[in-house]
């Protein structure tokens, strides 16, 4: 089953160079995403499935096998969700739920 991902509304984020710096407004903790994490973050609109993001965006921009990319993306998304900066669901995510 595909996962849907959305950026939490309780964060502030800024792209600086190829990095994405994110601050959780909940506890002011900071996160730094590399270039791959950055494209996943920007594509996390709540309605595009993660496997589609990996196939159409990550694999299009980076030289990586789709299966490996999807596995890495799932791990990254799981980690971001554990810190409360990403919302993950098996259904499309409405903006008010982000």
């Amino acid at each position, binding site marked *: 089953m595909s996962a849907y991902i959305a950026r939490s*509304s*309780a*964060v*502030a984020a*800024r792209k*600086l*160079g*190829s*990095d994405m*710096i994110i*601050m959780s*407004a*909940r*506890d*002011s903790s*900071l996160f*730094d995403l590399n270039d791959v994490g950055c494209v996943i973050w920007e594509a996390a609109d709540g309605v595009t499935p993660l496997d589609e993001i990996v196939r159409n965006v990550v694999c299009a921009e980076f030289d990586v096998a789709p299966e490996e990319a999807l596995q890495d993306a799932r791990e990254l998304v799981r980690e971001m969700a554990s810190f409360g900066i990403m919302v993950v669901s098996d259904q499309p995510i409405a903006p008010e739920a982000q």
Partner: protein
Amino acid sequence: MYADAATPEKVDVRPLAPRDAAQSYALVVDIGAMPVLVRTTSPEFLQILHLRYGGFVNSAAQPVFELDVEIVPPGPITDEEDLSVRFEGGRWVLERGDFHAELDPALQRGRIRQSANPYAIDAAFRILHSLLLVKEGGLLIHAASAVRNGRAFLFAGLSGAGKTTISSLAPSDATLLTDEISYVRPRGAGYAAFGTPFAGELARPGENVSAPLAAIYLLAQGPENRIDPLSVPDAAWELLQSVLFFANDPAPAGRAFESACDLVRRVPVHRLTFVPDQRVWDLVV
């Protein structure tokens, strides 16, 4: 005792009309060109304020915020041991064991209940200024700063990085703005750094002056004096660790984050590695 230590010969105050049958006094503490009028009925507390903020008292300044201080006998004011800052009913509520304060940003007024000591109002001032600054893109940063040749330099780092050391090594032609809490506001296309009375281990308030911010140095101690460039993401990542913001409220915290990101894009940020001797200041020009 602060009352005993006070020298009453010259106190810059504004006598006010009686309030609640008690004589009130006020003075304006002008930090970062953000004057705050403090009103109290306690002459003893007035002396404490004057001693603590002497170089920053400017009763001719037009206040941007007014703070009424209710002095109560020494002892716990609230059950909160750690500092708590929250937004409730349109007001910022600040609590620590030794004070309770409520700040109304819409009315630009607040009140604080505390005993007659300088520490509680000093903490309240830091929080108030962080809230005032964030509205206009400014920041309080855990950093030393100084002015040299008309330009300000900021030295950021966590505890132990060397803020006090580099401040104590400053040559005579450098004016110390602070060894602990730096005050940065947008000015024109860049930023300006202001002196603050918020002292660290030097136990000496900064000078009440300001200058354009020329560079930010992230401190590290090492075997030689050297300056290394930092990428913008690395600069943002490190500087954000030193930005002071006390409220866990998404809106102002997000604005502080944005302000820090803007700052590192507009002001050069370098790593300054130094050995603890005065030659490091040869690099700061």
